[in-house]
């Protein structure tokens, strides 16, 4: 991971955090925000970011559905067991297996997907060690992390102080 250059600040209030986010975005930089719980105000300020998690669920749900039908169909054809003249490859009973495996595959891969995306994002949008280790972000404080060039450090530092940051840290 490359060395972090930028500014990060700690905020007590949500409205000050969102104002800072909006002003940083006006400068052409997309900040990373840390919060103790999800707040839609932060999402609005960040411009409603999206995620590919639903697509992962859809893709693997479809795969589970395919396996759920094809596995019973293949095993029934592999060892033919005629019962009461009923079809060997019977869709209604296999629908139950299809349904269960759709749910199972979608659920497992949603969890794996969001964990993996979290890891990928930690490389794409790194945050400095000081911010990572600051224990009150999980408790009652908001954090705004701005990754920028050295020439803009002072500008962002002043912006955060002006918006009421409790602490501002400059990392070079």
């Amino acid at each position, binding site marked *: 991971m490359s060395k972090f250059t930028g500014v990060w600040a700690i905020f007590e209030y949500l409205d000050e955090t969102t104002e800072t986010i909006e002003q940083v975005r006006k400068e052409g930089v997309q900040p*990373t925000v840390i919060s103790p719980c999800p707040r839609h105000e932060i999402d609005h300020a960040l411009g409603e970011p999206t995620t590919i998690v639903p697509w992962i669920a859809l893709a693997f749900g479809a795969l589970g559905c395919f396996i759920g039908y094809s596995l019973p169909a293949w095993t029934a054809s592999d060892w033919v067991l005629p019962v009461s003249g009923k079809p060997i490859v019977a869709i209604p009973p296999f629908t*139950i297996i299809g349904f269960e495996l759709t749910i199972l595959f979608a659920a497992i891969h949603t969890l794996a997907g969001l964990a993996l995306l979290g890891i990928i994002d930690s490389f794409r949008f790194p945050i400095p060690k000081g911010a990572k280790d600051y224990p009150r972000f999980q408790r009652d404080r908001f954090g705004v992390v701005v990754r920028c060039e050295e020439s803009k450090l002072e500008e962002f530092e002043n912006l955060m102080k002006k918006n009421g940051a409790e602490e501002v840290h400059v990392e070079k």
Partner: protein
Amino acid sequence: MGTTAEYNATAGKVVIDEHQGHPGIKATTLDYGQINDEMLAMLDKPRPSYYLLLLGFLMALGLGALSLAIQVDVGIGYSGISHPIAWGFYITNFVFWIGIGHAGTLISAVFYLTRAPWRTAIYRSAEAMTVFAVMTAGLFPLLHTGRPWLAYWLIPYPNERMLWVNFKSPLVWDVFAVTTYMSVSIMFFMLGLIPDMAILRDEAIRKGKKLKALIYAPMALAWRGTNHQWIHYMRGYLIFAALATPLVFSVHSIVSWDFAMSSVPGWHTTIFAPYFVAGAIFSGLSMVMTVLIPMRAVFGLQDYITNHVIQSVSKMIIFTSMIVGYAYASEFFIGYYSGSPFERAIFYYRPFGEMESWTLLGENQINFPQIAFWLMVFCNVIAPIPLWRWKIRNNALAVWIITIFVNIGMWFERFNIVGSSLQHEYDPAAWGEYWPTVVEVGITVGSFGFFFTLFTLFAKSLPPMAIMELKEATNPPMRNAAKGH
């Protein structure tokens, strides 16, 4: 979300309108740090009474383990299960515990999608109950096979016997349904815990408790609470809720088809799936109340699990009680209306047994199914009636007593279904009687010990309420209150 906890800038305080459907949770009046402190205080060193309670449950579990050892060592013949009654206490327990597991997913997934705000305070505990109940339930079919060490034969895998499982059998559907349900429940539970584990990790760091931090850190999965993590997390949580919702309704439907797909009188009926699902929700919600009302008293959680929450769950209990009551009546009507002498016979046998008249005189004897039937009717249909009154719903002790009746009633409902039909099938020459042996009773008691031991350990090792969601429910800290949403 249609919250009714609004910040009144003029009055300078949070105003909660309990009557509009808000849980009235105390969290809405606290700040984020205070919520942390109150929740984490619940994980402090337990009082001696906690260990005493745990010891009681462990003793029940020990009795179950001893009975289980005897059962596995001697074999299934040591139980009361014998021709013609192939399904006895074990399948009854399986169906009962699967049903108990339904409330957790209902509260965490269905009420999440329908935005029922009162779920916030109770969903974590209910979800834990789901996980523990399904774990308990899963033991019984394995035990029932007689040779549990060969349970892996239920899984379709290439083998030297060149055989596959029969995917047209409801028993194999059950294997898939229950394992999927257990997996999804555990994952959903773990997913909800991730941000709270990060809270525990950071609080441990803040207070200099290195060992605790070391334990919680891997469970937090490197959670930092960045907006990137939150967006994936919240969307993933919503998807999980959407996936778990149909699963709740499918699992007990599939369990019911273990019975309904057979041609046994009293079982072969289309009403079974909704009847079982309603019963599962009924028993699950009752178990949630049976466990959470004492927990609320012990931890002093009256401001979180408010009377409003108890009232809301009670209303669901009344609603599902009416559905199961209707199902009981419907079964009898269809039994009569079918014109089938076997159906008519079984629905006479369930309440009245061998009795030839409505009196209890003469040589007529009451069997176990008759006891089960009348307990079922009393506990599931009559006992919840007082919940119609607001005063009763508002009284935690009264609700607790009623939910215990419901738990008893639902266990006997399961037995009534499993036991009675097998005792009196088609041919009177093949009729039989079932009484459980002491080993079966021991394992049943042990299953309750297993469930309650796990829950008691959970209550002191993981946050029994979702801290993150409590914070979400409260008003965020604002410098300028007028900007609040």
